[in-house]
C-alpha cells in the first residue's frame, strides 16, 4: 500500500482526476438545485410563487414555517418518529435474520420461499391496498399505530437486499465457526453481523425513510387527527384553499420532513463510505 502511495501520479491521471471531480461537482450542483428551489419557495408568499418573477424571495417570509409548526405539528412529529423508530428496529432485525437464512442456510424449500416472497411484491399495491385494509379492520386495528407497525415491519425488498449481501460474504469464516461448534444463532450474531455493517446501515436508512415518507397507508388506516402521521398532517396543513395548493407550505413541509432522515444518514453514513487514508484491511 505504501508503495502505491509513494508513487507519484502520472500527468494523465491528474487530468482524469480533474475531469472526474469536475463531473461530480456538476452533477452535485444539479441534484442540489431542487432543494435550493424548494427552500427558496418555502420562503416566498403564495403571490410571489404565482407571479414567479424572480428566483429569490423578496423577503424572508417565515409564514409557511409558522403555519406548519403552529398546528399539532409536535403530535404528528412524535407519532411519525415513534412509529418509524420502532419499525426500523424491528424490521432490520427480522429482515436480516430472514435474509441470512435464505442466503446461507440450506433447507428444503429455500428457493420456493425466496421466490414466493419476491412474487408478493410483484403484485401492485393498488389492488392489495383495500383487501389489506379489510384485514386490518377485521383485526380491530383500524385507526391504530399498531396497524402501521405490523404492516411495515416486513419489507421484502430489504430481505432480498440482505440475502444478496450475505451471498457476497466469504464463506470460510462461517465454516470455521461451524467446525468450532458454534450454533447458527451464535455464528450469525457474533461473526456475520459485525461484517454486515454497511448493509445494515443502508437497510436502516431506507426503512426509516420509507416509513417516514409513507402517505397512502396512514391515510387509509388512521382517521383521528391525533393519530396522524407527519405526512398526513403536513398535507392537511397545506390545504389552505379549495382546489389550489399553497406551495410555500408544501415546500416548507418537505424541508422540515427531511431533517430527521438527514440526521440518521449523517450518523450512519460512515459505514458505507471508506475514507481514503484508512488502511482498510482485507476481509
Amino acid at each position: 500500500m505504501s508503495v502505491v502511495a509513494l508513487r507519484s501520479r502520472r500527468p494523465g491521471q491528474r487530468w482524469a482526476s480533474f475531469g472526474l471531480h469536475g463531473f461530480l461537482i456538476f452533477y452535485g450542483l444539479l441534484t442540489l438545485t431542487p432543494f435550493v428551489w424548494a427552500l427558496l419557495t418555502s420562503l416566498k408568499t403564495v403571490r410571489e410563487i404565482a407571479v414567479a418573477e424572480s428566483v429569490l424571495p423578496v423577503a424572508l417570509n417565515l409564514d409557511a414555517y409558522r403555519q406548519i409548526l403552529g398546528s399539532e405539528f409536535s403530535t404528528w412529529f412524535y407519532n411519525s418518529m415513534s412509529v418509524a423508530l420502532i419499525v426500523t428496529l424491528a424490521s432490520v432485525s427480522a429482515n436480516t435474520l430472514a435474509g441470512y437464512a435464505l442466503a446461507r442456510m440450506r433447507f428444503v424449500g429455500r428457493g420456493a420461499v425466496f421466490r414466493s416472497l419476491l412474487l408478493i411484491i410483484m403484485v401492485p399495491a393498488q389492488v392489495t391496498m383495500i383487501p389489506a385494509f379489510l384485514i386490518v379492520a377485521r383485526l380491530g386495528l383500524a385507526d391504530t399505530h399498531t396497524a402501521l407497525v405490523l404492516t411495515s415491519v416486513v419489507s421484502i425488498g430489504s430481505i432480498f437486499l440482505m440475502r444478496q449481501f450475505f451471498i457476497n460474504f466469504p464463506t470460510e469464516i462461517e465454516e470455521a465457526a461451524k467446525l468450532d461448534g458454534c450454533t447458527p444463532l451464535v455464528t450469525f450474531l457474533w461473526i456475520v453481523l459485525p461484517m454486515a455493517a454497511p448493509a445494515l446501515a443502508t437497510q436502516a436508512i431506507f426503512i426509516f425513510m420509507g416509513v417516514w415518507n409513507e402517505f397512502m397507508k396512514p391515510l387509509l388506516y388512521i382517521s383521528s387527527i391525533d393519530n396522524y402521521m407527519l405526512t398526513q398532517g403536513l398535507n392537511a396543513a397545506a390545504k389552505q384553499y379549495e382546489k389550489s395548493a399553497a406551495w410555500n407550505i408544501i415546500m416548507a413541509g418537505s424541508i422540515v420532513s427531511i431533517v430527521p432522515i438527514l440526521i440518521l444518514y449523517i450518523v450512519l453514513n460512515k459505514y458505507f463510505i471508506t475514507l481514503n487514508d484508512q488502511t482498510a484491511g482485507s476481509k
Partner: protein
Amino acid sequence: MNAGMKTAANTALNSTAVRAAASARSNRDASAAWAFLAPTLLLVAVFMLGPVLFALFASTQKMDLIGGHSQWAGTKNLQYLLDDHKFWAACRNTLRYVLFVVPLQTVLALALACVLNGRVKFKRGFVTLLFLPTLTSSAAMTMIFMWLFNNNGLVTQFIQAHFGITIRFLSDPAWALPVIMLMNVFSTTPHFMIVFLAGLQNVPRNLYEAMELDGAGALARHWFISVPQLAPITFYVVTMGLIGCFQVFDQAFIMSGGDGGPEDSTLTFTLLIYHFAFKTYNTMGLACMLAVVLTIIIVCATSLLNRLVKSEGHNA
C-alpha cells in the same frame, strides 16, 4: 485452513459417524433457518398473502367492492383487457419506461458508486449531496419537474433560446413520458448508488492494489474487480428496478392529473389498475386481472434476467 488440514478433514468426512453428525447439523440448520424466518413468514401470511390471494380470486369476478356483490366472470375480464386500446397503450408506455430507466439507473448508480469509492476528495460531502434526491418525496419532485418543463419553464426556454425549437413537454404525447423517465432516474439513482457503495465496502482493497501495481487503469480495475464482485448486488438493483418501474404510479398520476394523458401517453399499468379499482363502478375484477397480468409480465422479465445474471454470483 491449509492444504494438509483440508485432506485430513476430507478423509474424516467419509466416516459414518461424521456423516451422521453432518445430517444432524443440517437438521439443526433447517430448524434454525425456519426459526429465523418465523416472524417474517407469520407477518407475511397475515397481512400480505391474504390480499394477494384475494386479488387472484377477484380477477375472475365482476365485483363491486363497495356494495359487496360479485359474480363469476371467468375469462371475460381478460378478453376485455386484450380488446382495450388503453391496455395496449399502457403496455407500450410501461415497457418503454422500463427499457429506458432500468439500464440507465443501474449503470449510473454503479458508475457513481465506483467513482465515490475511489480516491475522491470531499467524499462524504459528495455522497451526501448525491443522496439528496432520494429524500424528496415523489410528489414534490414531480411538481418541480413540471415547473421546469412547462411551456414557460427554464428548460423549455433554454431550448428555445439555444436551438430555436419549441417543445411543449408536458402536453406533447411524445415528450410527456420522457420527462417522467428523467425524473425517475434522477430520484432513484442515488438510492441504488448507496446500495452499490455498501456492497463495495466488502470488496478487499488488496485486489485493487494488486491490479494497480500491474499498471491497470481505473476503468480496467473496476471492470474486472468491482463489477464481478458486485454481481449479487447488481442482481438486486436490476430486479428491484424492474419491479419498481413496471409499477410506476405516483409520477404519472400527478403529471397527468390521473387520466393518463395527453392521449394516453402517460398511462401506465398501475394507473389503469387504479382507474378500474377506484374510479369506475363494478370493475374491481378488471383491476385485479390487470394486476395478475402485470405480475406475470414482471415474473417473466425477472426470470429472463435470472438466466443472464445468476443471482448467486461467485460465492454460491
